[in-house]
C-alpha cells in the first residue's frame, strides 16, 4: 500500500515536472496552472504516504535513505507550493520539480522496506531534528532554484540579449527576495536542526558528538558556515543579487554533497540504518 502510494507520487511529480518544463519552452498560462495543480495532487498523496509510513514504522520515516530522500522531496515540494503561492512565480516549478523528481528517483532506487530503529535513538528528538534539518535544507533547495533563476535572468539583462527565457523568468527583485526569504527561514531551521541533533546525540550516546570527528558532522559545520556567512552578509553587509545567488548555489551544493556522498560512502555513526 505504502509503496503504491510512493510510486503514484513519483509518477505525478514526473508529470508535473514535464508540464513545468514545457511551460518554460512555450509559455502558456494553462500549462503553468495545470502543472501546479498536478504538483498539489502529488503533494497530497505524498502526505498520505508520510502518514501511513509513520503509522507502519511507529516513528518519523527518516531512518533509511529511501525514507529520508522521499521525506526530503516532500519538504521541497511543501516549501515550493508555499513560495509559488507567496511570490506567484510561474517558472519556479520548472526549476524545483526536477529536484524533487531526482530525490524520488534516488529513493526509488533504494530498498523500500520500513527501517527499524535502535531503541537507543528513540526519543522525541527524532521528530525535531529531521523536521528542522529537512525543512531547512528544503528552503535552501528553493534558494538554489531562485539563485539559478537569478543568475540566468541577470545574465540576460547584463548581456543585453533578451531571449525568450527573459520574458518567462520573474524580475531580479522577486528572485532576490525569494532567495532572502528562503535564507531567513532556512538558516534558523538549519541551526535548530544542528542543535537538536547535538542534544539528541548527547542524550543517546552520552558523549558530545563533536568529541569524535564525524565526517557528517564536520560537513554539517562547513555547510552551516557557508549559510552563516551568507546570512550575516545579507543582513549586515548588504549582500544581494548575484553574490547572494552564487552563495545559495554553493551552499546547496555543499548540502547535497554532505547528504548524499558523505552518508553513502563514508562510514559514520550518523549513517542511516541499512
Amino acid at each position, binding site marked *: 500500500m505504502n509503496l503504491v502510494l510512493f510510486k503514484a507520487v513519483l509518477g505525478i511529480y514526473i508529470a508535473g515536472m514535464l508540464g513545468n518544463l514545457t511551460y518554460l519552452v512555450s509559455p502558456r498560462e494553462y500549462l503553468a496552472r495545470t502543472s501546479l495543480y498536478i504538483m498539489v495532487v502529488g503533494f497530497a498523496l505524498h502526505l498520505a504516504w508520510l502518514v501511513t509510513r509513520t503509522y507502519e514504522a511507529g516513528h518519523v520515516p527518516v531512518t533509511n535513505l529511501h525514507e529520508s530522500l522521499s521525506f526530503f522531496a516532500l519538504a521541497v515540494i511543501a516549501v515550493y507550493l508555499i513560495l509559488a503561492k507567496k511570490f506567484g512565480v510561474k517558472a519556479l516549478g520548472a526549476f524545483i520539480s526536477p529536484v524533487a523528481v531526482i530525490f524520488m528517483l534516488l529513493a526509488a532506487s533504494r530498498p523500500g522496506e520500513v527501517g527499524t530503529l535502535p531503541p537507543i535513538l528513540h526519543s522525541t528528538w527524532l521528530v525535531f531534528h529531521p523536521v528542522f534539518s529537512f525543512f531547512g535544507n528544503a528552503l535552501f533547495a528553493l534558494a538554489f532554484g531562485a539563485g539559478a533563476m537569478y543568475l540566468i*535572468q541577470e545574465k540576460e*539583462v*547584463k548581456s*543585453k540579449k*533578451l531571449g525568450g527565457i*527573459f520574458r518567462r*523568468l*520573474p*524580475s*531580479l*527583485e*522577486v528572485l532576490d*527576495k525569494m532567495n532572502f526569504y528562503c535564507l531567513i527561514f532556512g538558516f534558523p531551521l538549519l541551526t535548530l536542526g544542528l542543535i537538536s541533533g547535538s542534544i539528541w546525540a548527547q542524550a543517546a550516546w552520552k558523549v558530545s558528538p563533536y568529541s569524535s570527528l564525524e565526517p557528517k558532522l564536520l560537513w554539517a559545520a562547513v555547510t552551516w558556515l557557508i549559510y552563516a556567512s551568507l546570512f550575516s552578509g545579507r543582513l549586515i*553587509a*548588504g*549582500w*544581494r*543579487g*548575484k*553574490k547572494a545567488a552564487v552563495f545559495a548555489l554553493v551552499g546547496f551544493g555543499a548540502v547535497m554533497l554532505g547528504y548524499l556522498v558523505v552518508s553513502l560512502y563514508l562510514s559514520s555513526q550518523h549513517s542511516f540504518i541499512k
Partner: protein
Amino acid sequence: MNKVPRRARKEKLEIAIVGLSHQTAPLEIRERLAFPPFILDRALQDINLLPDVRENLIISTCNRVEVIFASARPADAIEQVKEFLIRFHHLSRETLEKYFYIYSQQEAVSHLFRVTSSLDSMVVGEPQILGQVKEGYRAALHNRCCGLVLNRFSHKAFSVAKRVRTETTLGNLAVSISSVAVELAKKIFGELKGKSALLLGAGDMAELAAAYFIRQGVKELIVANRTYERGKELAAKFEGVAVEFNHFPHYLNEVDIVLSSTGSMEFIIKKERMLKVIKARKNRPIFLIDIAVPRDIDPMVNEVANVYLYDIDDLASVADGNLEERQHQAQRAEEIVAEETARFSAWLKSLEVTPTVVSLIHKLRAIRDAELSRSISKFRGTPPEDRKTLERLARRLVNKILHEPITRLKQNAGDPDALAMVEATRKLFGLDED
C-alpha cells in the same frame, strides 16, 4: 521684407544653414546658443535685416540650433549670419568655427529634410523634432521672415517627414524604445510603483521616456539639467523636483532609475564613480539608461555588479531585434530624403529667370512649329510665298506674345516678387510638365 539688394542683381535664391547639433557641440555650448522663445522674435527680425538674407527661420531645441536662410548671395549671407551669431551670443570666432556646420544648396536642403524626418536626432525616429521645426516655422511666419522659398521649403520638409514616417518603421522605434526601457526596469525592480527616477538633461527623448515611467507608477522624479530653469519646467510637468546639475552624483546613491540625455562630450558617469555609488547603495540595483549621443555613461559601468546600463543602441536592438531590418529602414528613409532633395532642388533651380525664359521660348516655339507643320500639309497646292507668309505670321505672333513676359521677368529678376512671377509663369505655361 521688400528689400532690394544693394549690389548687382542676381536672380537666383539659394538656401543655406548655419547650425550646430548634439553631433558637433557639447551640451554647454548648445544650451548657451539656444534661442528661447522670448528672444527668438528679435533674432529672427535681426537676421532678416542682414543685407544678404532674404528669408530666415530658426530651429532651436536642446539638441540643435539651426539658422536656415535664403539668399541670392549665399557666401556673403553665411558670413553675415556668423557675425550676427557672434554678436548676439557673445561668442569668439573660434568657438563658432569649432562647433558650427555650414550647409548650402543641396546639402542644406537634404540636411533640413533629415532633421525634420528625425534621421539626425539622438534617437532616430523620435517624434518631437517635427513639432519643433513647425514651431520654428510658425515663429518665422509670425515675424514675416518667410517668403516663397522658405515657405515651400518648410512645407516640403514636413511632407518629407510624413513620408518617412508612413513609408518606414523608424517612427515606431522611439516609442518602442521607451516601452523596452520600462519592460527592462520591471525585470530588474519587479514593479515600478514607488520607484524614483533621475533625469540628467531635459532632452526630448528623456521627456518621452520619463512620461512612460511615470505612467508605470514611478513616484519621484528628479531633474538635473545644466540650465536650471529648463529643468524646473520639465520637473513641473511631472510634479518632480529640479536640482542643480552639479549635485547629481549625490542623487545616484538614492534613485532607482537614471535617464541620461545630456550628450556631453565626455562621460559624466564612469566606472570608478559607480563602484562607489553601488557601495553606498549597499548593492541596491540601479538601472542606467543612456539615450545621449555621444554617450553620457561609460559602457564599462555595466560591469559593476547590480548596475544595469543600457544605451540607446542596446534599447533599439532589443526593441527591434533585427538590426539589418533597421538599417534597411534607415536606408529607405535616406532614399526618400535624397529623392525629395533632388525634386526640391529642381524646383529651386526652376525659380531662376534665365532657364524659365529659355524654356518658355522653347515651349512656344514648339507649339508654333507643330501647328505650322500641321497647317502646311493641308495647303499642299498653295504657292511657296503664301506658305512663307504663313510662317512669318506664326513667328511674329509667338515673338509678340513672348516679348512682354520676358521683359517683365528680366526686369524683376532679383526681386522677391520675381520668384512668384517665375513660379506663376512656369505654372501658367506648364513648363514643368514633361
